[in-house]
């Protein structure tokens, strides 16, 4: 290995924002023909490192070389020109432009009189897509393409630029199993062409399946780099959190109390149908199923963000009006939605405002006035309770790491003291340490008598946390499985078959 020059090598790179050190000593060596995993908890400095490579940030110190030559990127254009491509979790393409136009955005080949050479653009894109072994029409607009296909277009862009180093920042977070396999096949073929790849993911099975080398980061520092064959998942987790994580699902056994939530015959044409279930006090009910089975839609209808045509929702025996989140909140429902940046938080508002958003009509009001004093007092209490890490309570929520943002959303709803808490994907995109913290907290809340409805796409989470599992398939509940009987096989079978087949 010693005589091969690294495609990209960063050593002791640091970056601070004001007094906050985001990266202490980042180190990463990407070799040609290798897929390098970069793992670490949220806030470990991975994203900062990637942004320095991409030219979005400039490093404060340390060295950065590409193929042995020192480089300094002042913009993303610099890094692209040097052969670096970064594929983000959610690509941002121009939805109304064609696949071809997106690939060549900003550097269209021109023919005579400065006319754009559409034919050569199209044929090159068709070539690349064929090489990647995927089926996307180069002429179709990108609107409506799945995230997986959009990522493929980003990769096509990178190939057409002949990128030497490709960095994929959590590309699989929103992909289905088949799509992940396809992405991996593409990644392997790029590796075999001699490109250097880096792969950031929170999913260890993927890291171990795809990568050959792994670098662990923690608290803004480089921890270790080793060949993947010489390590285990347990070792990596220990390096990431700096301690052993014994119990990822610290479930406390509870006895279910009175029925809190009753959903009866809920129907929204084309979305879900005949949804009937109950959630009792002290119980965690897991709502499992594949992405698109209608789980989040049911939760949104219960909370009232979306409407429904038939059926009824009752809380503690009282009917809830439909399509009225304010009434649902008054009745005692809290809802941690799926998309924390768009739905859970106002990311451009202060943390204090976000934490108190669900109680702004309740505890915060005294004599028709909401004062900053009461707002900050409540925010102090709940941010501390949830162990949110922040510099000041008037900092915008968008400045926090993903795990801390999720804690703010949880704090917001716990402040309202709900009887029923609906949590849609409680730990999506958050690090191992925070994950087990969220699980422990959910378990405690249930033990304290709260009814919890949890939607999760992670099977271990469903099996580990839920007292009862409801499985949905194509808008209907296909099975209800008690904790003792819930096995991965049973849940997956119910998630992929209709009700008759499951019953048979």
């Amino acid at each position, binding site marked *: 290995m010693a005589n091969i020059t690294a495609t990209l090598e960063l050593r002791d790179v640091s970056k601070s924002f004001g007094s906050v050190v985001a990266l202490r000593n980042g180190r990463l060596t990407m070799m040609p023909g290798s897929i390098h995993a970069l793992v670490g908890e949220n806030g470990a400095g991975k994203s900062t490192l990637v*942004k320095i490579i991409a030219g979005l940030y400039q490093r404060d110190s340390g060295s950065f070389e590409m193929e042995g030559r020192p480089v300094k990127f002042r913009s993303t254009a610099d890094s692209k020109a040097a052969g670096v491509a970064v594929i*983000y979790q959610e690509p*941002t393409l121009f939805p109304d432009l064609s696949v071809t136009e997106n690939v060549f955005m900003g550097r269209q080949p021109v023919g005579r009189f400065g006319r754009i050479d559409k034919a050569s653009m199209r044929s090159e894109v068709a070539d690349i897509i064929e090489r990647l072994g995927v089926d996307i029409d180069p002429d179709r607009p990108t609107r409506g393409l799945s995230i997986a296909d959009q990522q493929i277009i980003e990769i096509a862009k990178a190939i057409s630029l002949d990128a030497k180093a490709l960095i994929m920042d959590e590309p699989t977070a929103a992909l289905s199993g088949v799509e992940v396999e396809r992405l991996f096949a593409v990644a392997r073929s790029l590796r075999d062409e001699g490109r250097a790849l880096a792969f950031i993911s929170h999913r260890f099975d993927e890291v171990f399946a795809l990568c050959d080398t792994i670098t662990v980061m923690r608290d803004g520092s480089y921890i270790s780099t080793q060949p993947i064959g010489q390590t285990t998942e347990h070792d990596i987790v220990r390096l990431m959190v700096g301690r052993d994580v014994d119990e990822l699902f610290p479930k406390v056994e509870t006895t279910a109390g009175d029925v809190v939530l009753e959903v009866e015959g809920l129907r929204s044409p084309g979305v879900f149908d005949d949804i009937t279930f109950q959630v009792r006090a002290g119980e965690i009910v897991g709502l499992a199923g594949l992405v698109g089975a209608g789980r989040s839609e049911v939760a949104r209808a219960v909370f009232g963000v979306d409407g429904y045509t038939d059926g009824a929702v009752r809380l503690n025996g009282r009917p809830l009006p439909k399509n009225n989140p304010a009434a649902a909140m008054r009745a005692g429902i809290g809802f941690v939605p799926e998309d924390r940046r768009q739905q*859970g938080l106002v990311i451009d508002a202060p943390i204090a*405002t976000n934490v108190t958003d669900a109680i702004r009509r309740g505890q915060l009001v005294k004599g028709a006035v*909401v004062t900053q004093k009461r707002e900050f007092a409540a925010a*102090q209490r709940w941010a501390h309770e949830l162990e949110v890490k922040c510099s*000041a309570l*008037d900092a915008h929520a968008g400045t926090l790491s993903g795990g801390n943002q999720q804690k703010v959303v949880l704090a917001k709803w716990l402040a309202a003291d709900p009887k029923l808490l609906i949590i849609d994907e409680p730990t999506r995109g958050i690090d191992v340490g925070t994950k087990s913290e969220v699980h422990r907290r959910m378990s405690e809340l249930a033990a304290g008598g709260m009814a919890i409805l949890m939607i999760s796409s992670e099977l271990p989470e469903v099996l580990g946390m839920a007292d009862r599992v409801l499985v949905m398939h194509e808008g209907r509940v296909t099975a209800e499985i008690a904790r003792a009987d819930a096995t991965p096989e049973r849940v997956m079978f119910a998630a992929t078959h209709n009700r008759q087949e499951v019953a048979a």
Partner: protein
Amino acid sequence: MNYYPDHARPLWRRALVNREMAIVYLLVATVAFSCLTVDNFAQSITVYNILRNYFSALILALPMCLVMITGDIDISVGSMVGLSCSLLGLMYISGVPFELAMVVAIGVGALGGLLNGLLVTRVGLPSLAVTLGTMALFRGLAVGALGTTTVTKFPEFWTAIPKYAIGETGVPVVMVFFAVLMAAFIWLLHFTAFGRGVYAIGLNSQAAAFSGVDSARTRTVLFVLAGTLSGVGGVYWTLLRGVARGDTGSGLELQVIAAVVLGGVSVFGGVGAVYGCVAGVLLIGVLANALQVVGVTADIIKIITGGLLIASVMAGSLIAWTKNRRVGAKAASAQTE
């Protein structure tokens, strides 16, 4: 019980160094400069003239501030001032008691605002398109209602009201009404759950909905407030001039929107404060008055006001830009690269 600092910046910096205060300083500087350099400026008659002429803009800046913080806009306010004025004249010459006519004129303003609000929130049309339409609609009705007639000779008891000043200060008595109204809007925006909802809608309407903010209701209420105060503005204008005409309030909407943007409200919503908008109106008023006194013509005054508006918006983006560079918050734009 304090585990975190509440604020990253100390109180004096938060209170004195911000976008709204910048306009207040500019206002104070303009007043001071005018007093020193413009002959006969530092008199109570100047205060009297400015406040009397900008009273409608002042009261309209209050609801416009909130409307624009939610990310909407209402460009029909000037036409509604005209319609209110025109209807007041029409009812008066038709023999309707003047007091009743005033109430009805204000009521029509409220209804017009409700129409705007329902079209925006229930039908789901963009507020710019809706109020562009009602701007033409209200103006058409205003001009149509009176035709070429100009109504004058309103009861003197009422037309005298805009002319009273508080003692020797030159401050019109009607400013008391404005002060109460401003206090009410400050309360509504900065000290109620409703106001928190207004900001939330402007920053992220989806997250607002997930926090139980009734966006449709909030926005409708704001349009009704804008309409109602347009009705009040129309009545005021009629009393001030003692004349009802269909073209009253033409261009007022632009003056109000300019003042609100100058006062620090983001055209994208989510950002702004009531006092900044009030300072914005006063700045435009003082500047126009001072320039007029030194003999600058109306067209040049417009050019200067326009330039000031663009400069203020540019300064705002410039500050945001340098701040972003410093904090490295280009992360937001990372994904578009």
